[in-house]
């Protein structure tokens, strides 16, 4: 087991504040429409073991905007289907000339395993229930666009925290800057142990309590496939936790509504909220590209 190659991004938890601020600053200077070819002739492999629309397309556009060559390898239609191990796939991609690997995987820690055995940067594009660092960075980018500073901010994260890599990364990132976060949902989704993830976390079962005075409302997708066998009833959840226009009034008047997508209208939020003036959901997706440009430029040592 070796240390991950320089430029790897495995998670937010172990990043220092100045590294995060550096990435966000770099992201602000990235313009996909007027990009400099910083990564000309660099080969970036997008290795996706799970479905993805936003993350995959924005990493690909980010890489191409910087002049890199990209290849997409997915579990179906590759040797992964034939039983090739994660490490052997990694060695193979390294041998064909990959300069960096962007990995999405259903198992927590998969990028850590790959990074421990390869000498090229590995970028975590979501690993199981663990972390989704590029999402947390683009969310931080989005928050700073609308809120100027993290100072004194209150954030409410509502939904299935337990299964959410987005929530874990967001909690790590925002609490590093002193943001107070309230996690809200039923105990099956927000177990009491959630508060041990980072300092400055609080749990509530009542959405009204979570929303009062909050600057940012972060919603998570209700993963219907997770409900099987769980005690959570869909209709119950909608009644207690759906984000409606009426509930949103409890938050600060200038509060923004975020969601990592894909959104399910009528479930975790109403269409009115999704399309309302406080929603920045589309802006988040948009910000994914410059953020991921910054991540890739840093990964390949072109972060100047």
């Amino acid at each position, binding site marked *: *087991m070796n240390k991950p190659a320089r430029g790897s991004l495995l998670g937010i*938890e172990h990043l220092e504040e100045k590294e995060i601020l550096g990435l966000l600053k770099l992201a602000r200077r990235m313009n996909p429409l007027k990009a400099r070819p910083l990564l000309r002739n660099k080969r970036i492999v997008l290795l996706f073991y799970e479905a993805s629309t936003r993350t995959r397309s924005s990493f690909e556009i980010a890489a191409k905007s910087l002049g890199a060559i990209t290849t997409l390898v997915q579990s179906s239609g590759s040797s992964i289907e034939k039983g090739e*191990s*994660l*490490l052997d796939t990694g060695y193979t991609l390294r041998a064909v000339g990959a300069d960096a690997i962007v990995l999405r*995987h259903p*198992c*927590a*820690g*998969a990028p*850590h*395993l790959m990074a421990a*055995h390869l000498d090229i940067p590995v970028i975590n594009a979501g*690993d*199981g*229930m*663990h*972390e989704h660092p590029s999402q947390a960075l683009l969310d931080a980018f989005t928050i700073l666009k609308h809120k100027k500073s993290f100072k004194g901010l209150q954030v409410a994260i509502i939904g299935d925290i*337990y299964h959410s*890599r987005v929530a*874990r990364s967001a909690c790590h990132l925002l609490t590093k800057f002193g943001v107070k976060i309230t996690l809200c949902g039923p105990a099956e989704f927000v*177990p009491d*142990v*959630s508060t*041990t*993830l980072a300092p400055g976390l609080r749990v509530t079962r009542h959405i009204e309590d979570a929303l009062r005075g909050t600057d940012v409302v972060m919603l998570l997708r209700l993963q219907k496939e997770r409900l099987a066998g769980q005690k959570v009833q869909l209709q119950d959840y909608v009644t207690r936790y759906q984000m409606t226009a009426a509930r949103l009034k409890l938050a600060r008047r200038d509060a923004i509504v975020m969601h990592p997508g894909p959104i399910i209208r009528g479930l975790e939020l109403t269409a009115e909220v999704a399309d309302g003036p406080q929603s920045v959901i589309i802006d988040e997706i948009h910000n994914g590209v410059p953020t991921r440009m910054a991540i890739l430029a840093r990964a390949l040592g072109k972060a100047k």
Partner: protein
Amino acid sequence: MLNAKSQRRESGSLLIKGGHLIDPAAKINAPMDILLRDGRVAEIALPNKVRGGADEKFDARGLIVAPGFIDLHVHMREPGQGYKETIASGTAAAAAGGFTSVCTMPNTMPVVDTEEWVAWLRHPERGAEVNVFPIAAATRSSRGAALTDFAALQRAGAVAVTDDGKPILDDEVMRAALRLGAELNLPVVQHAEDTRVTEHCSMHEGPTSFRLGLRGMPAAAEAGIVDRDVNLAQQIRESRLHVAHLSTSDALKAVRRGKRAKARVTCEVTPHHFTLLDEDVGEYNTNFKMNPPLRTASDREATLVALADGTVDAIATDHAPHASHEKQVEFERAAFGITGLETALALAITKLHREHKIPLTRIVELFTAGPARVFDLRGRGSLQRGNFGDVTIFDPKKRWTFEAAKSRSLSRNTPFGGWQFTGKVVATIVGGKVVYREN
């Protein structure tokens, strides 16, 4: 009961001279010389007072001499998975760790659920370096339904029955197993885990599993089964329940309750559970993935207390070798288990004796008289005259570093590679013959 290979060693004599004997069952903790002859203990006497002559002498000055260590819980992987370990390689590792007897788990391929497989395990062609005592499956193919033929398995040499790894969840099947075991005086060993709530889990449930995004096994999944089993053991007269690799403080409470009620309940604890914590898994290090998983500091504290106060009957390794391709994978997909035979005594001395001040006599008891009692291994666990000539000789002060690459096991899946220990096995003697000697 001796294995054929050690029967071949039976003639001849060996005098172990100048050592300090710790034999808890015989209440001896004093300098003694020991004469082994024809595979048995011939004489125990004060220094230089042994009367019989010997072909060979072993100079044990400055060393502790103890009855041969017994490991109640090892996976030797044969039949069927010789790429992980064989009886020959696993027992060589056992010898290097000071174990003269190992009890093998039946979750092999196929499962050891017939007399033929029990006999196969004990056959001289397996090339065992130490005594092998098979534990047979409690139910056919360990499916948890129809009981195996306990009587036939016992006649073939099985010392206990278990469905290790696939716990018996059905109350009626467990009740029937304990009943039949009671009739035959055969212990039923349970790997206590309510697998209905631990599906897809890969470590202990707590802050570390939450942080790593891994599904966690709640402590209650172990305690619930132990609680149920202890209740059954109390209801069924003469039944014998042995709780394997106990890891939680609540499960210990249930065992204590059973012991107080005079039920025949015994339990074992592994060196990794009295040494490591769930948080030691770090960034998904699969050499810290085993089942039961590493637990919290308070669970470890409870096992340390129970090891000291006599609640725990034996230290058992749960030696579980796996090939590198089964461990160098995603954490959630990695095989459960670590090797443990060669580090058990070193961990016991380094952690239990030196750090937690548990006396050496108690530690030796946990490796000898304790386990011998759990499975009724007659003539073992103590060096009284006429007993088997199984002896473990160790240096409790020797400092050394464990190098996983030099292990005698076929596998390398240990979390203790590079660890510095105090306390090392110097020689292992089975049936009067030296099978391991430190070089």
